[in-house]
């Protein structure tokens, strides 16, 4: 009931459609019984049973003609009302589906990173597809079927009762058996159908894994074992399918059998009533009775399904409500965010910042001041909290205690939009969208002043929103691609910057993805640029060119570079070393090497690993070698 209450705001938007539709169902159901009435009148007229003189016909041919026309007119009327019903209720349910989907999408856009860290994409997708579909089915098919069943039974029983109470009692006695058996079967079908679906997804997952892991399967020559496994799963699918067919296949024939047996009983009893000779029950009435009963076949079948549809719809709606009820911890708080802050220079300050996830401490009492224009290097072992520093700046999360400041403002007082407009992040594993390369690089451009999609309103009569193409400034896009060392790759694609990425387009290599993400970040001219281990998939030659490009854009900006390689970090104005969430060292490369702490140890390890004698070759030659490499053309990425 509670779930119905929360559904009401959506139902209310279309209450007129639902109301008209439901009335139409009742009318259609009543009118639908008229053809059998006309058939009865004809038969009784022909037999002359209701006539004063039973030996002569009590009806004329023109009357029969009228009855025949009546049949057609009645079915046309019923059909018209069914059409109205579908165009009202079923369309309303589709519109509600659209509205719920639209509103959830809007709500999801407002949720923060901590939410998405916990949520699984597959689960969210299931709710937005399967659960939403179940709710729609309840509102559309479910709603009219309930009214259809109720009004169908009511009108049919009224007619049957008026024809013969004795026969109606027989039907009433048989009804629980019929409905009970069909409901039982419906439940069995549901259960077995789920079993089939489970096996289907297992077998699809097996195929998916086998095909994407083709290199392993072939490399270790395990094809025959894979085929064996697949065949076993295939056989299980066959078993489950046959078990489903055993109950699903004969559903209609069971209905048919039960109605047939009921007909036999009615023929026996009804025949006796006719043979009583008092004229209260006629052959025409008998025919009408049986015909009317047959009209109940479909509603009877539906009784078993309708409870399932309603239950599924209600519990699905609860799962959708959970999405609506999720709240973002990170958001612009009223009275706290100061809309007056519109530009940022890039002074960054961490003041006693601690972050805890439940029991686990990710950052502990970190204080750090980074003046605008500083190139800050951050390093430390995996899990030391490096990435969290960047996430605090963009307010992907808020600290448990302490304050993060940009330009002296607590980041929580800076409107999220302003804050994020001034900071660009290149994440470790960048996510690119299936769109053109130009639009992916210009991802953060031209997003201001767009109309908002209205939520919580009916789609009926709402004009469609304009289609505003992105068209990013191509000069800026090209320049960013050049700086990120991506321009050469893009120009090699036949469609250049219009090349579409993703499933239906080109798949980029890991290095190309990282460089696209770098271009996407620097095209915005951010005050603060955060690079989170974003050169890991780039080879040595390319890394060098990107670092040069970065140095070009970095002038006057705050750059926070998170990484492991000393060769990358050593240019930083300032380097901090994190370990277990604590800031353990801070200074320039030379300071830290001299200090002989953790950083010096990493530097020593990397140097030792190189097994390179310091005096093996003079430094001058290295410069020559590097220059030579730089002027060699980049080899194309391998086609895989």
């Amino acid at each position: 009931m509670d779930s119905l209450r929360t559904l009401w705001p959506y139902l209310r938007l279309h209450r007129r459609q639902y109301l008209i539709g439901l009335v139409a169902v009742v009318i259609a159901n009543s009118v639908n019984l008229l053809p059998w009435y006309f058939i009865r009148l004809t038969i009784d007229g022909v037999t002359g049973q209701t006539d004063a003189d039973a030996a002569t016909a009590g009806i004329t041919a023109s009357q029969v003609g009228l009855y025949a026309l009546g049949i057609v007119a009645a079915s046309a009327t019923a059909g018209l009302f069914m059409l109205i019903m579908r165009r009202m209720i079923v369309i309303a349910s589709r519109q509600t589906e659209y509205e719920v989907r639209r509103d959830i999408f809007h709500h999801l856009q407002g949720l923060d990173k901590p939410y998405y860290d916990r949520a699984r994409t597959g689960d969210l997708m299931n709710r937005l597809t399967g659960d939403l579909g179940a709710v729609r089915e309840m509102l559309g098919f479910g709603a009219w079927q309930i009214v259809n069943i109720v009004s169908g039974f009511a009108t049919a029983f009224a007619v049957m009762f008026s024809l013969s109470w004795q026969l109606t009692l027989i039907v009433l006695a048989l009804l629980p058996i019929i409905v009970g058996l069909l409901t039982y079967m419906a439940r069995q079908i549901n259960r077995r159908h789920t079993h089939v679906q489970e096996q289907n997804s297992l077998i699809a997952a097996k195929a998916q894994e086998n095909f994407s892991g083709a290199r392993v399967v072939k490399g270790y020559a395990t094809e025959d074992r894979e085929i064996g496994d697949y065949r076993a799963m295939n056989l299980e699918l066959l078993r489950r399918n046959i078990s489903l067919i055993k109950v699903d296949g004969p559903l209609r024939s069971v209905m048919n059998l039960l109605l047939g047996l009921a007909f036999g009983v009615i023929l026996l009893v009804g025949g006796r009533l006719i043979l009583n000779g008092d004229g209260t029950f006629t052959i025409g009435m008998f025919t009408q009775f049986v015909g009317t009963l047959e009209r109940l076949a479909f509603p009877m079948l539906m009784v078993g399904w309708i409870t399932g549809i309603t239950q599924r719809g209600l519990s699905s709606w609860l799962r959708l409500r959970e999405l609506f009820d999720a709240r973002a911890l990170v958001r612009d708080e009223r009275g706290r965010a100061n809309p007056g802050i519109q530009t940022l220079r890039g002074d960054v300050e961490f003041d006693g910042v601690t972050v805890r996830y439940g029991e686990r401490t990710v950052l502990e009492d970190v204080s750090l001041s980074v003046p605008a224009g500083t190139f800050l290097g951050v390093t430390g072992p995996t899990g030391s909290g490096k990435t969290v520093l960047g996430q605090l700046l963009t307010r992907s999360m808020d600290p448990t205690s302490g304050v993060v400041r940009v330009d002296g403002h607590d980041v929580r007082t800076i409107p999220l939009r302003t804050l994020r407009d001034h900071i660009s992040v290149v994440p470790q594993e960048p996510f690119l969208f299936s769109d053109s390369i130009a639009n992916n690089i210009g991802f953060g451009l031209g997003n201001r002043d767009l109309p908002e999609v209205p939520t919580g309103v009916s789609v009926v009569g709402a004009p469609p929103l304009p289609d505003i193409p992105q068209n990013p400034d191509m000069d800026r896009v090209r320049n960013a691609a050049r700086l990120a060392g991506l321009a050469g790759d893009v120009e090699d694609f036949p469609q250049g910057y219009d090349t579409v990425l993703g499933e239906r387009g080109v798949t980029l290599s890991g290095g190309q993805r990282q460089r696209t993400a770098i271009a996407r970040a620097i095209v915005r001219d951010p005050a603060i640029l955060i690079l989170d281990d974003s050169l890991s998939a780039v080879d040595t030659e390319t890394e060098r060119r990107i670092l040069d490009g970065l140095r070009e854009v970095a002038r006057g900006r705050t750059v926070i570079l998170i990484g492991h390689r000393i060769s990358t970090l050593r240019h930083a104005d300032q380097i901090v070393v994190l370990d277990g969430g604590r800031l353990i060292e801070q200074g320039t490369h030379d300071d830290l090497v001299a200090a002989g702490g953790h950083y010096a140890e990493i530097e020593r390890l990397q140097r030792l690993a190189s097994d390179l004698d310091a005096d093996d070759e003079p430094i001058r030659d290295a410069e020559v070698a590097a220059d030579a490499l730089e002027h060699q053309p980049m080899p194309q990425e391998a086609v895989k």
Partner: protein
Amino acid sequence: MTAGAPLPPEPNKAAFDAHLTRRIFRYLRPYLALVVGAVLLSLAFSGIQPLFGLIQRYAIDNALTPFVNGVTTDREPLLRTLTTAALTYMGLKVLEFAVQYGSIITIGYLGQNVLRDIRADVFTKIQRLHLAFFDQNPVGRLITRVTSDVDAINQFLTGGLVSLIQSAFLIVAYAVIMLSVDWRLGLVSFSVLPFMYFASNYFRGHLRDSFRNNRFQQAVVNSKLNENITGMTTVQLFGRERRMALDFDHANRALLTANENSVKWFSLFMPVMAVLGQIGIALVLYFAASRLLGQDAAAVTGVTVGTLVAFIGWTTNLFQPIQDLADVFNNLQAAMASSERIFEVLDTEEKITDKPGAATLDPFEGRVTFDGVWFAYDQDVTADTPDSDDRWILRGIDLDIRPGESVALVGATGAGKTSVTALVSRFYDVQRGAVRVDGHDVRDLQQHDLRRHVGVVLQDVFLFAGTIESNLTLNNPGISHERVVEACKYVGVHDYIVSLPDGYQTEVRERGATLSTGQKQLLAFARALIQNPDILLVLDEATSNVDTETELRIQAALLKVMQGRTSIIIAHRLSTIEHCDRIVVMRRGLIVEQGSHRALLDRGGYYARLHRLQYAQGDAAD
């Protein structure tokens, strides 16, 4: 209203392709008994169906009408007739149910077996295909072949063939009985059937189109949803929420429009069919009643009240098979496209096959020889393609690796390192020259036997759904637990595995998302070690993404795994490979220099430059 992405055109297929049909029929052959059974049961069912109308007619004309008309007043024989009729009716219903149930189970059993055979054939075929096939066909497309395309063949069998046979039998049975009882009334009731057939065909065609459009728009909405959810944090960081919302709304609206369109067709379809049906009944009623009224004695024309009632029933029962028949060709057409795609996979040429009499190597020593190898992934490149063509990946590689020697391949991305390793396992065949193992051209060896001797540690460690142990043994029951533990201890991942809640039986979730890169790398070494290969191929560029300490552990493990085996290693980080016996430096498909680490540094060539660049670039750049 803005339309969403345009619907891809449906391939214009002939409704019936004799060749394809014959191939599908070939799958029926093993189940000939079931096929015959299904047809016989169908025939029996069709024969029983019209009898119910006859019994009703008999009961009305012989038990009820004589009394009503005052012809007979003795109720006893009438009651007896009535009881006989009712009991026969009920008995026949039970028989009908039994026949129908039998036919449903037979057809279901037949269909499911055929599906299972087709599915197994496609999967087995795909297992036998060369790796290049997987490069060219996205995984999603291959999955469609073994799932929805196979389901479409099911549609062909049940929705197409079975309903064609069943509907045809039923229509014939009803036609025979109706025409023999009263041919004039029969013709009257048939008069509406052609209209019904064409109306049904027309509407179902439109419905099919609009359902196809629905599915397409739903797929667009789903892929946009998926992308937005996965990339939500990126969207938020770049302040792009409104653009994404606008974009999504267009897709969402297009889906709504498509759905509304199908509702519109469907809402017309049902009433039109119902009205056509009732017109048929009204016609039968009118003509039957007129004739009953026109002649004073029923005996003259043969039309009785019972006949009238029976004809109303028969006419109603004819509607369903007629509508099914109207849909048969639509179903066949849809299935044709799918079966064509399936047979296309089954007909794919297996590019890499064992020659007749392909040899196995025993003993296996592990010498690898590249003899003037030219290779390109592009299938269009042949031995005659000019040397200057850009598509060549390897351009004349000569390399001889002794048994037990470890060789590191060094070079920039695209230099051809990965291709060298792929050729040793014979994932691809070379265009010129030959790759030899122990002096035998790999094309003369049995693929399976060759690959059993070659272990691969992949760049992107692929973990299957299952336990850690099953991922290490690759489900080979012949590998003992002790051997697994031993290998894990050896590479130094045992302690980590034991620390997991279920140890070696811990389920690997979501492709190992919970494992760190370093741990996955170590598992990959353990996996290779357990298979105990004679030749080891390591693609370890992934080590670049781990911290220094883990990297050192991986290096230690790598050194252990390499011992006593022919090893070919690819790595970014020079430090990983300095311990190899020989370093082969590649550039644009050619070997530019080779030798030991020391010797190459002394030579001061390309390797020395690469090496120095990595460790001295800070100084060089300032």
